[in-house]
């Protein structure tokens, strides 16, 4: 019954919101949904064997419960942030309603993609995420936002079409099985035709990789992330990329079961290193802090892909990195929203002295940087360290060295901008930096995210460790 609630609630709610068009009701519904969502997700985690009506198509398992929990946490935080963010007079009732409906449908489609047990169904939901988030990216209705939304829809739709070609090829490889349920595919893995499976993995990796933001096909990501409203950027970066990644992960497991994983690993590691390289090149000379964060998302997705490709302890590192990245990047993007409200510009060169204008935002900005850079109290330090250690153990010294150098360049590139923005004097002292616009709801989610992440870097509680371990086991059960 639970899965039905989290899947059907947003559909009914968006219909009601569409008819009612009231700001207050929008806020209430979103908050209720967020709380309900978290409670239900936790209940999934506590008893894993509940019976569902749609059991054949949507199910939680050891792997996707991790992704669902991350989505629940990020969604709840972003919802509370939204209470403050949309509290401005320049968003009227109509726009606010559309925005809320957009978020509901976006969450609905991501949940569907995470929970579905059928590759075809996951694909449908990934397509739905594109449609639901396109309006949200276009929300500011400027020329730039339109350009970003158009590029987003066009590039992602081509990616999704290629993924569909991959699914057709996978179906060809199944020969007599003729089913796209993951469980059927896994149990009959030995009967799959390896030639078609290899071909289909390439198409699925490129296609879904477009949504995930891996390097050669990432080009929509910086535009969309920088032009969307900040809470939406946080959702895109911390939740959407993960749900696309889950599908790649599931298909990768199929490759493992058919012993074609060597081939898949080479593809993943080359895309991962290319992602790091692209980020290192672009982040260095960038003048828009939201684009900078978007490139950092590409980098982190690259690291996760490398972790999966390396295997062994690398899978654990990738899962830990996934959690850490989602929490820290969400906090980073939400803080970027605060900065945008205060300074009303996205240019790094025009901002300095955030600490003097708004102490809390400044510290959140710096702490988020500490987190994303992987400096010691951050979970990303642990995961990157584990990843490099595994690579050295497996004698992959040259890729490990390349990764280290690229990571250093990226940290320098981001750090330079963050320090320039946080410290120093205020450039225009007389200017009113919109002090009335920011309330507690726009600080609290980031504080919780960043504290959670930094605590996770020092001490991983046993139940969280259990979730990660289960996910790792689910990936490697041969």
């Amino acid at each position, binding site marked *: 019954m639970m899965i039905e609630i989290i899947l059907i609630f947003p559909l009914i709610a968006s219909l009601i919101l569409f008819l009612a068009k009231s700001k207050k009701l929008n806020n209430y519904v979103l908050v209720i949904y967020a709380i309900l969502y978290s409670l239900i997700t936790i209940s999934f985690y506590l008893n894993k064997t509940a019976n569902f009506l749609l059991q054949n198509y949507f199910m939680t398992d050891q792997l996707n419960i991790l992704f669902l929990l991350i989505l629940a946490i990020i969604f709840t935080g972003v919802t509370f942030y939204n209470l403050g963010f949309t509290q401005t007079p320049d968003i009227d009732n109509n726009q606010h309603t559309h925005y809320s409906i957009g978020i509901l449908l976006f969450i609905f489609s991501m949940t569907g993609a995470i929970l579905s047990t059928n590759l075809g169904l996951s694909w449908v939901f990934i397509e739905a995420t594109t449609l639901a988030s396109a309006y949200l990216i276009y929300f500011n209705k400027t020329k730039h936002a339109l350009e970003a939304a158009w590029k987003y829809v066009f590039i992602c739709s081509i990616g999704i079409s290629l993924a569909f070609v991959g699914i057709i090829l996978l179906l060809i490889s199944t020969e007599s099985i003729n089913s796209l349920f993951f469980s059927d595919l896994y149990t009959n893995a030995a009967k799959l035709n390896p030639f078609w499976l290899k071909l289909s993995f390439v198409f699925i990796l490129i296609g879904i990789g477009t949504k995930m933001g891996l390097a050669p096909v990432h080009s929509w990501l910086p535009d969309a992330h*920088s032009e969307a409203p900040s809470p939406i950027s946080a959702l895109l970066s911390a939740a959407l990329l993960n749900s696309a990644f889950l599908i790649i992960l599931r298909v990768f497991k199929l490759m493992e079961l058919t012993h074609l994983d060597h081939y898949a690993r080479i593809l993943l590691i080359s895309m991962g290193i290319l992602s790091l390289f692209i980020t290192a090149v672009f982040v260095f000379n960038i003048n828009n802090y939201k684009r900078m964060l978007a490139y950092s998302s590409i980098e982190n997705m690259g690291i996760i892909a490398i972790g999966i490709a390396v295997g062994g302890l690398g899978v654990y590192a990738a899962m830990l990195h996934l959690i850490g990245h989602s929490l820290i990047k969400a906090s980073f993007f939400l803080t970027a929203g605060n900065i945008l409200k205060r300074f009303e510009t996205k240019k790094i060169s025009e901002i300095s002295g955030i600490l003097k204008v708004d102490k809390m935002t400044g510290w959140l900005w710096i702490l988020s940087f500490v987190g994303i850079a992987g400096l010691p109290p951050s979970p990303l330090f642990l995961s990157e360290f584990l990843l490099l250690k595994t690579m050295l153990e497996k004698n992959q010294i040259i890729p490990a060295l390349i990764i280290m150098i690229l990571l250093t360049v990226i940290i320098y590139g981001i750090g330079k901008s963050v320090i320039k923005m946080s410290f120093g004097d205020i450039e225009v002292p007389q200017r009113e930096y919109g002090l009335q616009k920011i309330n507690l709801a726009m600080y609290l989610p980031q504080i919780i995210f960043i504290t959670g992440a930094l605590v996770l870097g020092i001490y991983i509680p046993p139940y969280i460790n259990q979730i990660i371990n289960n996910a790792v086991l689910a990936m490697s059960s041969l």
Partner: protein
Amino acid sequence: MISILIVIFGLTMLYMATTSRIKALINMLSIQGIILFLLILFIGKEKILHFNFIFLLIETLLIKAIIIPIFLKRVSVKNNIFRDTEPYIPNFYSLVISSIILFAGFIVSSSHHQLFANITTLYFGVSISTILISLLFITTKKKILTHVIGYTMMENGIFLLSLSVAKEMPMIVNMGVLLDVFIAIFILGMLVDKINILFEELDVCTLNNLKDCRDDD
């Protein structure tokens, strides 16, 4: 009969690669829709369930062959776009490249018989080369409208590919229909006028405001 239809489908791709007139491109899309309709009519009976069969027939004839072309034509008239002048590579070269792709599709699919146990080779060759030619088409043209036409071509190719799975048809063909939703979004986006108000010409060269240099933004 079926083979002839598929060969005609491949030939429409070659024609689309050479022409720069929008009207001709849209007519070719319409012809492709009709070919898909006939293919389902001929081969579908034994492979597709009853309701599904009727649904797919209606979908291909009504949406692919009639509604999408009509709306694309409306966009082209409304925005006064009748030609895609100056593509990034001359039409003659794109014809040559497309022919090579199509030829390679035929050769590859007919030379590896043992791999093609459960799909129809001719379909496979033509549909894969259609997808590749459309990607080439999208990358070499400059107008947003021609990009959407290229995407529609690609979607037709994917539909043909899903028909090539020779065993009993699962939901996969119906899922392919969902890609039409994107085309609807694109066409809506251009009809609602937002793009041509903000960007005077419907040209991808104007979509270059977002980039990573230091001085702009």
